[in-house]
């Protein structure tokens, strides 16, 4: 029996497909680069140099022209399906979910 939790089995219907927010601008690119270990946490506003350096590093390992600019090819590489583990370190075991005290 497929698993369901709602009496009307509505949770079995495929959810409307949630799509990942495309990476199309410096802010989403900055977030992508910091999530996968290529840059520090996103600054309040994109600092061109920090971002360019991070983009350049990312371009180099992806065998893309290391221009440091967010060109179409680089954005396409960022939007490819990929593993969520950062590229520069492993995820360590998360603490067990805390339980609300009775």
């Amino acid at each position, binding site marked *: 029996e497929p698993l369901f939790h709602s009496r009307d089995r509505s949770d079995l219907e495929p959810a409307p497909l949630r799509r990942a*927010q495309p990476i199309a601008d410096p802010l989403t690119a900055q977030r992508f680069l910091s999530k996968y270990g290529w840059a520090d946490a996103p600054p309040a506003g994109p600092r061109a140099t920090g971002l360019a350096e991070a983009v350049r590093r990312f371009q180099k390992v992806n065998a893309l022209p290391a221009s440091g600019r967010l060109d179409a090819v680089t954005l396409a590489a960022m939007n490819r399906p990929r593993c969520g583990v950062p590229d520069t370190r492993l995820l360590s075991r998360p603490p067990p979910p805390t339980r609300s005290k009775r």
Partner: protein
Amino acid sequence: SLRPRPPQPEVATPRGGPRAFAKRTLTWRLLGEGASGQLAVDEQRHILRLAFRMWSEVMPLDFREDLASPGAAVDIKLGFGRGRHLGCPRVFDGSGQEFAHAWRLGDIHFDDDEHFTPPSSDVGISLLKVAVHEIGHVLGLPHTYRPGSIMQPNYIPQEPVFELDWSDRKAVQKLYGSCEGSFDTAFDWIRRERNPQGAVTLRFSTYFFRNSWYWLYENRNNRTRYGDPLQILRGWHGIPAQNIDAYVHLWTWGRDERYFFKGNQYWRYNSDKDQTYTKDEQGRSYPKLISEGFPGIPSPLDTAFYDRRKQLIYFFKESLVFAFDVNRDRVLDSYPKKITEVFPGIQPRNHPFRNIDSAYYSYAHNSVFFFKGNAYWKVVNDKDKQKHSWLPSNGLFPKQSISERWFDICDVHTSTLNM
């Protein structure tokens, strides 16, 4: 402090490397509430079982699906989820980009908004491929951008062959060591084939037998065949299902006979029909007693090999070796002798002495090797003698590690042998 803490994974710091599991067998489970709605649960479990087995084929750990223990006792829990999921601090992003993540020595989560498909499909994202990748993280492997590696961060649509390549194997073996272990027997199997011109050519395959399973070793690729080990029962018909003592290929101009030995019996194998003979030319049935077919030879044996030049079978038992003349069907008068006497060690005290596991003549190396435990001793061959005439005939070179010459001969958990 009142509630017992869940057991933490036994963790050891391997040689200078990142942290790794110290247990030999790891357990895993697809969480009941974490199954995907896209594939049948059994298919998901089958794909995950295969993914774990693929790692087990190249490293000393094996993996067992555990459906019974308390969740906290299971080493690796896997589950599918959308957005915020399974109490995980990382939120999935919906379809596209992130399709899964894993925690070192911990759990694996798949984004159920992705279109995961079975290995046979060429659309969507192969669940097998993603699972193998994420298990790599659990074992302690980071991302790499090396072409051909399964640990590349981006999904590479289905390639014709999807296997763990040499570098992935070395990376995981750097954390966990290489596969070691003794063998019941090892031998080269000669096959007659016709080449495109119709001429008969002789080829050989190398086999390693251990307990009830075996590997074909591909000498030119320095690894076992993809998907091995297999169960002996599946690949060889009529011989005992496990613990073979010896294999002998008696091969002269007029004779081409292949024998398996176990206990006090032996079987003859029909290469063309790929099964054992039921009767010999005189109508006597197989298996036969070793004492009848090879008078003077004791049993059970440790091992045996056939020396084509001398047309002698050397049978080994404990510290003794018996030389059996195949043309006169009897043991040479001067035998049995001590193994150390017939095959002297070149280096003092560097010798297997007794109870060798296997005596294996390798056509790939044109040499005989004595296996015992994890080690082998190579017997001096003609080429060695031409180079260094002082070497004793049939001398044994100092021992070396089997896993440093024959790579990645790894066990898998018996529950996955039939995959």
